[in-house]
């Protein structure tokens, strides 16, 4: 197992390096100057140039890149041009809410998606099947910011069951409480994907001979479907959820905006709009690491789920 993890990590280094290099240059390509934004429309050219030189932004690009690569090699993500705080600190404070949200979203997607998929597969072709498919498709068709507004409007503002904003005041319960609506918003789209994936995987599994054997052994319907069949269907489901984790991260930007949650998505968006290069590079670096970690986890899960796959 460890050997596989090591092998995968080594293979991931080029991807990581590729991602950082791409990010460094793409951000520079976008016109706009962070110092000009910082000083606003009333700053004279001289003022802007002075601060740019002080921050080293006027050095030739290759020099800036070498300094950037050198710093990353030692694990130093640099300092934000705006807040002058170390980027690693800014990210660390926002990492927890985003990861909580992402996990919440995945949880919702699985808790709602899997049963729906199983139900649709078990009653394939009936009204229940079409209903489940229809409902799950709804998850992917309604824009998530619309779902977010409606949920926040109904459950938070009007009914007051949940806080209208923020990521909770620190305690476990209040954090969880503040996670419900955002996770639902993020999870609904994921639910559609998981439901459809579960349905087709389950249909395939239920058609297999070992299901007939399980029935012939006299096992209960629930045990046959939820244990023998689902256990096999879990293999493709886990892979799909893993693959789409990156896509899910994209969704957090919008959800964090609607529920005023601090998060990587919002930090990245603001940093990009303000051209705060170090922060953009830092966040992208972290997202790439998260992406690689998730892929690694999916790969490590494979042998556990499917004995035929030897590490």
């Amino acid at each position, binding site marked *: 197992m460890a050997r596989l993890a090591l092998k995968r990590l080594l293979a991931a280094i*080029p*991807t*990581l390096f590729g991602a950082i290099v791409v*990010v460094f240059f793409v951000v520079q390509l976008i016109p706009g100057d962070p110092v000009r934004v910082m000083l606003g429309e009333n700053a004279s050219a001289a003022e802007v140039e002075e601060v740019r030189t002080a921050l080293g932004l006027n050095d030739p690009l290759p020099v800036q890149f070498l300094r950037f690569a050198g710093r990353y090699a030692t694990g130093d993500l640099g300092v934000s041009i705006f807040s002058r705080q170390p980027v690693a600190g800014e990210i660390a404070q926002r990492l927890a809410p985003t990861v909580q949200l992402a996990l919440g979203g995945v949880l919702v997607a699985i808790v709602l998606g899997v049963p729906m998929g199983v139900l649709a597969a078990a009653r394939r072709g009936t009204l229940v099947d079409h209903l489940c498919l229809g409902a799950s498709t709804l998850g992917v*068709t309604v824009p998530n910011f619309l779902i977010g507004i409606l949920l926040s409007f109904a459950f938070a503002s009007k009914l007051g069951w949940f806080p209208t904003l923020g990521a909770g005041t620190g305690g476990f319960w209040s954090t969880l409480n503040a996670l419900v609506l955002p996770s639902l918003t993020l999870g609904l789209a994921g639910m559609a994907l998981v439901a459809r994936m579960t349905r087709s995987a389950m249909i395939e599994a239920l058609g297999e001979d070992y299901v007939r054997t399980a029935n012939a052994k006299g096992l209960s319907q629930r045990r046959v479907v939820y244990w023998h069949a689902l256990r096999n269907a879990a293999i493709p489901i886990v892979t799909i959820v893993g693959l789409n984790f990156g896509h899910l991260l994209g969704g957090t930007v919008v959800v964090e905006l609607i529920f005023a949650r601090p998060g990587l998505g919002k930090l*990245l968006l603001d940093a990009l709009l303000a051209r705060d290069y170090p922060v953009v590079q830092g966040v*992208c670096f972290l997202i790439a690491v998260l992406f690689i970690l998730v892929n690694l986890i999916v790969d490590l899960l494979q042998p556990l789920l499917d004995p035929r796959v030897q590490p």
Partner: protein
Amino acid sequence: MNALAVLRRHPSIAIGGVIVLVVFAAALLAPWLSPHDPAAQNLVARLRPPGTAEHLLGTDRYGRDVLSRVLYGARVSLIVGPASVLIASILGLTLGLAAGYVGRKTDMLIGRVFDVMLAFPSILLALAIVAALGPSLGNMILAIGLSMTPTFGRVIRSAVIGVRARDYVASARALGAGHLFTIAVHVLPNILSAVLVVSTVAVASAILVEATMSFLGLGVPPPTATWGSMVAEGKGMFLTAPWIVISAGLPITVTVFGFSLLGDGIRDWLDPRSG
């Protein structure tokens, strides 16, 4: 099996098809169907609620007729969706085919490229393109197309690997068929169903991405009416003028629902086993 029988056996093709056709019709006939010029402003008649004969779906913050804008909005969504999917499928097809068919080094290389693109949040990629080239319909399509390419590429790559392992491909090669011939005759038709399914779902998500981009303020420039920008504009005043968001959000949902049903139906029809 004649067309009617196909529709009867696969109702989702029928329903999905009808929805998509209706939306296409609305887009096509927009000039004749819409009561007002979608860009005509009337600041005095600003934010009128729906239900009046003059403005069936009410007016927006500039006093423009919401119904007309929804009809014209269909045009953009029906251009953005398929066009960006076209880009994604062409790029995805070439890269996916190369990776899946050639295998070994190319597969590794292209696999890495996909990884980097997937590791790169698609929002950032789209943002970079729009910020660099300016927000126009074309750039929006390019941005969405590029951000969906890795997904297409991956699906096609796995489909190609699946097909390539089949005996009929090996036998074709054994009979001396060239690579291009084998790909064209044997590989392509068999991965078509996978491409088709991904495309219909991708059209659905492309329309949503356009809406999200507009929501984040990077959408198609005014006064062009797009469903996404209408929802984005209306969202800020959701509490006082919910009809704007709903009249634009509903068509997005219906269209995307139509495309998904169509995709499901076609996949069931083409590849019953996976249904």
